[in-house]
């Protein structure tokens, strides 16, 4: 799989998946963290919270601002913390690829 250079104004570009990941079975939540100016935010901390708001996982975004989780079908909240500001997003994920954009606000 190739990685495109991600512009935050472009459609959501997710993190490339390892070839071993089976999208028939995995529920992948992925996307890009962008700043208010539309630039990707690398090194942001993105946390995945479950339907009750409890912490489930945390990853650090790539230099292109990308993040990725392997979850299960259901309702999830994403929360990004970065030097450029914080952001929240809620989503209902199903099996396969679920793409989310996060814009942080200082």
């Amino acid at each position, binding site marked *: 799989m190739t990685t495109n250079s991600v512009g935050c104004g472009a459609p959501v570009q997710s993190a490339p998946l*390892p070839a*071993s*990941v*089976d999208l028939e*079975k*995995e*529920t992948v939540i992925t996307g890009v963290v962008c700043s208010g100016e539309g630039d990707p935010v690398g*090194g942001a*901390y993105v*946390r*995945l919270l*479950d339907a*009750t708001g*409890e*912490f*489930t*996982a*945390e*990853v*650090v975004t790539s230099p292109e601002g990308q993040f*990725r*989780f*392997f*979850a*299960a079908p259901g309702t999830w909240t994403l*929360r990004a*913390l*970065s*030097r450029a500001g914080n952001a929240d997003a809620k989503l209902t994920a199903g099996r396969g690829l679920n793409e989310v954009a996060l814009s942080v606000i200082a």
Partner: protein
Amino acid sequence: MSRDSALVSADWAEKYLGAPGIVFVEVDEDTTAYDTGHIPGAVKLDWKSDLQDPVRRDFVNQQQFEALLSERGIGNGDQVVLYGGNNNWFAAYAYWYFKLYGHGDLKLLDGGRKKWELGNRPLVTDPVSRTATSYRAQTQDQSIRAFRDEVIAAIGAKNLVDVRSPDEYAGRLLAPAHLPQEQAQRAGHIPTALSVPWSKAANEDGTFKSDDELRQLYGGAGLDGSKSTIAYCRIGERSSHTWFVLRELLGHSDVKNYDGSWTEYGSLVGVPVALGDEPGDPPSN
């Protein structure tokens, strides 16, 4: 043990950068994190290639640990300050591991890499080399390490604390959600284990909650302070975080980390497993 003896703040660490006798050590799950920028002067430990036996599932032995620390330039008298990513999971794991081999002066940097980075503190990519030492380790302190037979015997007798996320505890996920979910072992938890996710002990910036909040957390979850406690997670690193809280911050006397954790327990033939959000009962004989 207490907060003052086991934990240092980011402000403290910044003040003592480069001080003689203090060695900062970064330990990460993502072992490339160090190379993209680390605390000035910090040496790197790879939790997998440095701390795990390359063939068997076990730790490096006493002699290998001595050789590792000698090569990294860590002396027996040095104060070792551990920090890392993932809210200090692997740094807490290394803290427990250094304790296992009897290192004397150990601290964990509160908040780890996250607190340090979000606070715009300095990170450098300069290579770090320290003069080699002749480190001497102790034999493993088994009073802080639990093995599977002891864990099975603890069902219904000791406190078992499952520190994974609620969905892993219930059996809805098999691994933390930053990892693929295809796993060999069965899902669920050890019957009677209390669910106290490690994350409840930490603030959003990765620092530990106050002692009062921590006491309320474990008391409220039903942890019986008069009993011994065994903490576990999936591979023993998140449970090191909870081991650190219970033993090093709150001063509980008998707390063990089960490093075999769910990847071992969930693969054992014939052991009881509970599914769902409740601890479940001990198996009746």
